[in-house]
C-alpha cells in the first residue's frame, strides 16, 4: 500500500501546476481582451474619469502586471478571488459559497441518475448482445444523447408539474419552508437538522432537473458500457473462468470490473463539466447554481467574477482527476506509478 500512497500523493501534487497553468491562462486572456474592464463593467453609464480611476486603483488594475498576477495568486491560496467589479464590495468567494452547493447537489443527483440508467442499459445490451433488447438499448442511447435539455425539461415539467401536479416546476425549495443551511446542500441540510418537511420538498425540487440532466447524460454511458463490457465478455479470461466452472453471474461481475476503466474516465470528465455548472438545466429549472451565475456574470462583464469562477473550477477539475486516479488504482493493480 506504500506504493499506492506515494502514487496518490504525486497525483495530488500535480494539481498545483494544473491550477497554476489554468490561472495563468485566464489571467493573460483577461488582460489581452481589448477594452478597459472597469469601463466594460459599467456599461454605457457615464462615470466621471476620476471615479473610473478610483475604481481601477481599488481593484489594483493600475499595478504592474506581475504585481497583479502574484497578488491575485496570494488571494487564491486563501480562497479569496477578489471583489466584484459590478457590485461594490461583493466578494466573489462569497458568491461561489452561495452558488456552488446548488451545483454540487444537482451534479450528485444527476450523476446518480445518469450512471444508474447508463450502467443498467449498457449491461443489458452487452449481455443480450445482438438481441432486440440490445437494439432497443442502442436506440435509447442515441435518443437520450441527442435530446435537447430545455425541451426534455419542459416536457417533464408539463407532465409531472402541470398535468399531474406531483412536482414543483422550479427552484430548490418552497420559500415558505424554512431550513437551516449548514452545508448548502439542501437535502443534506434537511437530514442533518432532521427537518423532514424540508427534505421531502428539497427532493421533490431535485427530481426533475436531475432526471432531465441524468437522462441526457446516460446515453453516452449506455454505449460505453455496452462496448467495453461486450468486449470483456468474449475475452480469454472470461472463457477461463467458465472453464473453471465459475457461475455466469460472478463472471459478469469480473468482466464488468475489467471494462470499468474507460467508464470511470468518462465519469470524471462529466463530473468535472457538471461542477462547472449545467447552464441549460439551471436556466430551465431556475436552479441557482454556478452555470447560471457564470452566465449572469459574463453578461454583466464582471471580469473578476469570471476569473474567480474559472480558477475555482480548475481546482475542481484537479480534485476530480485526483479522485479518478485513485479509483483507477483501486480497480487495476497494474496502475502504480
Amino acid at each position, binding site marked *: 500500500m506504500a506504493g499506492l500512497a506515494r502514487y496518490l500523493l504525486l497525483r495530488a501534487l500535480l494539481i498545483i501546476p494544473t491550477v497554476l497553468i489554468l490561472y495563468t491562462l485566464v489571467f493573460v486572456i483577461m488582460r489581452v481582451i481589448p477594452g478597459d474592464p472597469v469601463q466594460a463593467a459599467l456599461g454605457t453609464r457615464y462615470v466621471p474619469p476620476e471615479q473610473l480611476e478610483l475604481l481601477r486603483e481599488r481593484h489594483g488594475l493600475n499595478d504592474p502586471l506581475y504585481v497583479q498576477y502574484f497578488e491575485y495568486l496570494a488571494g487564491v491560496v486563501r480562497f479569496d478571488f477578489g471583489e466584484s467589479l459590478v457590485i461594490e464590495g461583493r466578494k466573489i468567494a462569497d458568491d461561489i459559497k452561495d452558488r456552488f452547493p446548488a451545483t454540487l447537489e444537482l451534479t450528485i443527483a444527476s450523476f446518480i441518475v445518469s450512471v444508474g440508467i447508463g450502467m443498467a442499459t449498457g449491461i443489458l445490451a452487452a449481455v443480450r448482445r445482438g438481441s432486440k433488447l440490445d437494439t432497443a438499448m442502442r436506440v435509447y442511447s442515441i435518443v437520450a444523447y441527442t435530446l435537447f435539455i430545455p425541451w426534455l425539461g419542459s416536457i417533464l415539467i408539463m407532465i409531472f408539474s402541470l398535468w399531474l401536479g406531483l412536482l414543483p416546476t422550479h427552484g430548490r425549495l418552497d420559500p415558505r419552508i424554512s431550513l437551516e443551511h449548514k452545508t448548502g446542500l439542501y437535502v443534506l441540510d434537511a437530514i442533518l437538522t432532521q427537518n423532514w418537511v424540508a427534505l421531502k420538498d428539497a427532493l421533490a425540487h431535485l427530481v426533475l432537473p436531475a432526471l432531465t440532466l441524468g437522462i441526457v447524460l446516460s446515453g453516452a454511458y449506455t454505449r460505453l458500457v455496452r462496448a467495453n463490457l461486450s468486449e470483456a465478455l468474449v475475452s480469454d479470461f472470461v472463457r477461463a473462468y467458465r472453464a473453471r466452472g465459475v457461475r*455466469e453471474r460472478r463472471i459478469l461481475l469480473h468482466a464488468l470490473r475489467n471494462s470499468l476503466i474507460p467508464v470511470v474516465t468518462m465519469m470524471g470528465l462529466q463530473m468535472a463539466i457538471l461542477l462547472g455548472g449545467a447552464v441549460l438545466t439551471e436556466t430551465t429549472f431556475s436552479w441557482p447554481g454556478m452555470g447560471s451565475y457564470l452566465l449572469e456574470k459574463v453578461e454583466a462583464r464582471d471580469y473578476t467574477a469570471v476569473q474567480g469562477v474559472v480558477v475555482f473550477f480548475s481546482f475542481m477539475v484537479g480534485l476530480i482527476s485526483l479522485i479518478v486516479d485513485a479509483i483507477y488504482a483501486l480497480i487495476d493493480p497494474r496502475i502504480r506509478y
Partner: protein
Amino acid sequence: MALLRIEDLNIDYMTLRGRLRAVKNASLTLGEGEWLSIVGESGSGKSTLAMAIPGLLLPPGRITSGRIIFQGRDLTGMSGDELRRIRGSEIGVVFQDPLTSLDPLRTIGDQMVEAIMEHRAAGSKREALEMASAALESVGIPGNRVKYYPHQLSGGQRQRVMIAMAVMLKPRLLIADEPTTALDVIVQASIMRLLKSLQRKMGMSIILITHDIALAAEVSDRIAVMYAAEIVEEGPAEQVIEEPLHPYTEALIKSTPDLWREKTLYSIPGNPPDLRNPPSGCRFHPRCHKAFEPCKSREPRPTRIRDRMVACHLYG
C-alpha cells in the same frame, strides 16, 4: 470402459455468410490415463472439437448432432449448470495464451479460491487458499505466489498457474489447447514435461491440441489428425508417425523442420479449403499427390485397420 467417447459429432458455426461446418462426423475414444493429441493446421477444427467437450464453444458455434459420452454421461444433453459443475472439477482446461487467460485485476489466489468454492471443494476460504497454494507448489511455483497478480509473473509461470488451476480439483480429463504456442521453446519443453508428470501422478487423461506433430509424437499415446473439419487418421502415436496411412499425415510429417537433415523444408502445395464451400469427394484431393479417380467424386468412409482408423480411398 473408455473415459470419453465422441460419436459422430457435428459442429456448425452460423455465420452471416451461411452455415460453416467446423467439425464433421468426428468420432474418438479416449481411455483412462491416456494421452491423445489432436493435430492439424489452423482452422482444421481441432480446437472447436476440443472446446465442445466441456461446453465451451464460443457463439455462434453449436453442436448440431452427435454425442459426447464422458464417464457414461452424455454431455451434449446436459443443462448449462450441470456442465458448469463438471468444468473445473472433472474436466480441466488449459488455454493457448496464458497472458490473457488470467483476470488481470485479481490475485492468482482469489481466482483459484473462487473456483474451489464454486465446486464446494473446501469448507472455508482459508482451506481453499491452502489448496490453492498446494496446487501452485505441485506445478513448481512457490505457494506464497497466491498473493501475486498475474502481471507480476512471467509467461511461463502464468501457464504453470493456469495448469495448477486446471488440475487443482483432480480432474479425470485435462484439455490443453495449444498450451505452449505463446511460449518460447525452452519454456515449452518444461511445460510439456510438467503435463507429463502430472498425468502420471494423477492418472488423468489428456487431450492435447497442437499444430506441432513432432511435439505430439514425443508425448502422446495416440494421435488424431484433422484436416478441413474431419478426422482423417487416428491411431497409436508411434504407428501414426512411423508409417502414416493418410497422405495428409505423411505430408504433415514431411513438413516438420529437422535440424539434422540438410534440405529445404517440404510444404504441402495449395491452401486449406474454404469450409463454407469444401471440395467434392475427399477434401484433401486437390492437394494430394496420390489422388485418383474416386477421390474427386466420393467421400472416403472411415476404415478400421487393427486399432487404427483412416479415411482415405487408398484403404477402402
